[in-house]
């Protein structure tokens, strides 16, 4: 990641439509963008497309970006919204995999330390779409249930329910995972 000063210069160049600088910005934030999109979309192909769409939005609207603010949160918002739009177009949120009530089991934290990105993606894929969205939005990206309700067009209470179930499912899956790993 570039330091703040060089990032400001980079953005200023991008505002002038300099293609080389846009490429530089792209490459410097490629991993960041792909990481966010893949959490929501679950596979690299879709994530790359959403990330690229987000970059295009950035290049087109970078004039509106106030350089006194941090670039990353602004960009993160674009990435999340684009991923949600992408998902919204291609799926129906109404589907849900109902989980039976499970009793959370305690998992040793050393197991969590060792799980890789691919393990996490596999775990996430085991969640249904809505649970994955809500978990990502709330736990990782810091959105409130109210914001999530607005973004996903669901009641706030549903957001809470999806989050609880996502957590339960993950606990259950991690237990299985840790047993399997052992």
């Amino acid at each position, binding site marked *: 990641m570039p330091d703040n000063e060089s990032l400001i210069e980079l953005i200023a160049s991008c505002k002038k439509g300099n293609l080389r600088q846009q490429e530089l910005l792209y490459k410097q934030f490629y991993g960041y963008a792909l990481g*966010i999109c893949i959490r929501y979309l679950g596979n690299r192909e879709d994530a790359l497309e959403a990330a690229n769409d987000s970059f295009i939005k950035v290049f087109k609207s970078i004039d509106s970006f106030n350089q006194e603010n941090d670039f990353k949160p602004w960009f993160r918002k674009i990435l999340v919204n684009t991923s949600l739009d992408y998902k919204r177009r291609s799926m129906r949120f109404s589907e849900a995999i109902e989980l039976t009530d499970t009793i959370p089991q305690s998992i040793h934290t050393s197991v969590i330390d060792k799980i890789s990105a691919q393990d996490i993606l596999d775990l996430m894929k085991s969640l249904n779409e809505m649970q994955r969205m809500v978990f990502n939005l709330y736990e990782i990206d810091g959105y409130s249930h109210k914001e999530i309700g607005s973004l996903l067009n669901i009641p706030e209470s549903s957001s809470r329910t999806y989050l609880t179930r996502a957590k339960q499912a993950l606990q259950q899956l991690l237990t299985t995972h840790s047993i399997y790993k052992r």
Partner: protein
Amino acid sequence: MKTSDEELKEQISAVFEDYDDGLGEQGWAELRKKYPAKETKKLPIWWLSGIAASLLLVAGLYFSNAFDKDTEKVILRAATAQKEHILPEEPKQSNQENATITELDTITAAIHSHSAKNKSVKQESAVNKIPPYIAQTTTAAAINTSSTKEINSAVSNSTIAPTTASVIAENNNSVIAASNNEAKVIANNEINNGAVVVEQPSIPKLSTEEFLKEESRLLANSTNKDTKKNGTSKTTLDVFTGTFFNYYDDNEAKLSAGIGLNANVKVTKNLILSFGAGISQNKVSFENNVPAQISSAMTSSKNNALSAPSNSFAYSATATNDLSFNGSMWSIDLPMVIKLYPTNKQDFYISTGVNSSTYLSQKYTYNYSLSNFAVQNGTAQPQQQTEHSGLKGFDFANSAIIAIGINQNIGKNILIFEPYYKPALNAMGDKNLRISSAGLNLKFNFNGNGKK
């Protein structure tokens, strides 16, 4: 102590904070397919416009120069025939008996010097058509003796120069000038350093009445020649370059450009028939608002794609998303219009007509996504199809032309600003697109002297 939930959150954040798979270069290449394509497509249009404008300028200067020479000749010929400036001359007393020396200070207004040989020849021939007149003198002395007339001609750098001179021969003793009108001398002399002594040739004399008649005839001829000259410019040429927007309904208008040539044939004083040929690029874009005739083509295209679906996916026709269509055609346009000049001043015109087209190349791109609800939760499968075709097709009168031209004189030529509107009358190209356009033509008319 952190709970397993918190540990998981932190781990997820850490793992995905910079999920660089080392394929950034490939990702950028993918992005370039979508995004910068628009930028790079814009460049040729502006380059094309720039090149067209440059060509227009160069051609304009060339024709302008050529026209200047032609008109110069006409003006010269008319001036030679018409202009005669007579200045009184200083009489000189001669001390010699039986000899009359008439010194003429001849001012020739219509002397026009040119270094070009052919021009000089033309001048000469033009002058030679004029019957020579000689100063009419009544004195026996003047006739009987070899009169010497010294003609001081103001010439510059000419080897041969026509001189139409008026001579007033004034003699205190025996030479009587007949009259200013009668005493005319036209000398076609070889000039040496601006002053030459010429032996007066034997030239038939004309009476005043005869001279006036001859003069009138000459003037009439000269007018006729000019008229004929104007008559030959009844047909003029325009070179034009235009930028315009293509649109269909409420889709995004696309900027396009073209260049071409027009011929203008004068039908009546205020009516001109104009026709020509040009090359232009027509682009259209349909985003989620694709007209029926294209939808059917796309459906057919999709069905072809579905005839051999990969991985045995069963696509649902109702799950099509993000339908878009882009078309780009390079066409030869054949406009034919009637121009009407409503005022005698002829500084603007209204024109209407039709345009026909044939196509040098056509490119159509379909973008759509198909969803399979049975697989991957209905994840959309993006699809793109492109069709190309070469030179083919001719659409007669596919659009009407309504335009207003505003003339701006530039030297002998005219620069015309012509805003226009071309509503679609018929479909264009393989996909039967009905494209209307509006734009501005910049025309350079090689005419000289204004009127087209």
